[in-house]
């Protein structure tokens, strides 16, 4: 699952605006496969963590009600040149992370 995260971070007046797009099916476990009639098992991101340098700036817990290929935007304190890392873990134990420099 390499490169499943698109990450942008922009600093303005000491506040960094982070925008992230993740590639993930986000199955709730409630949907039926139209061809086979079987339930599609749940497969969604459970935890998202964002770090600016070593400091955790955001950690979130998600359910299956976040849309497919999730979009997330948040604001934190920081400056240009800081390194921002965003990572997620899903309910199957798969995970991914991405790092970008704040511009």
């Amino acid at each position: 699952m390499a490169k499943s995260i698109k990450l942008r971070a922009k600093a303005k007046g000491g506040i960094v605006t982070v925008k992230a797009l993740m590639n993930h099916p986000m199955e709730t476990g409630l949907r039926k496969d139209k061809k086979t009639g079987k339930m599609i098992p749940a497969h969604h991101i459970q935890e998202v963590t964002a770090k600016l340098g070593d400091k955790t700036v955001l950690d979130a817990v998600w359910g299956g009600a976040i849309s497919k290929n999730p979009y997330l935007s948040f604001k934190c304190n920081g400056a240009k040149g800081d390194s921002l890392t965003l990572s997620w873990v899903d309910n199957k134990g798969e995970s991914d992370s991405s790092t970008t420099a704040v511009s």
Partner: protein
Amino acid sequence: MNRRTLLKRTLAVSAVSVAASAGLLAPGQVLAAYPKAAFEAKDASSALSAALGAGNFEHSDAIKIKAPDIAENGSVVPVTIESSLSGVESISLLSEANNTPMVASFNLNGSEAYISTRIKMGKTGNVLAVVKSGGKLYANKKEVKVTIGGCGG
């Protein structure tokens, strides 16, 4: 699931736990406290008590919810939450009409009180934003009319 994918997954899980024990991931922040009960709760107040420890909240106009009045497609409803309350610790997002109302909870760790994301809504109902500030819960809601549901089907 065949043997190969099973092996792969167990390996992936153990890799994560190795990383956790090596201190790369701070335990307690990642992996440990996934509030499963909150996401399985069938109504908003029990979901809130499972996630935040309290089911009751005060209404507050200092929380702004930006969401469409009418969402054509319930599987992608853009929602933005902003709050002018001071010392906001966490923002939780619920969709009252969903089978399991809990959508997500964001722990801010000193970040600005601003979250924007896209959520699924099963049918027309209120989007509930609950903000924890100074140990108290404040909430605001906004109704979103959904023409095509986005859960199951």
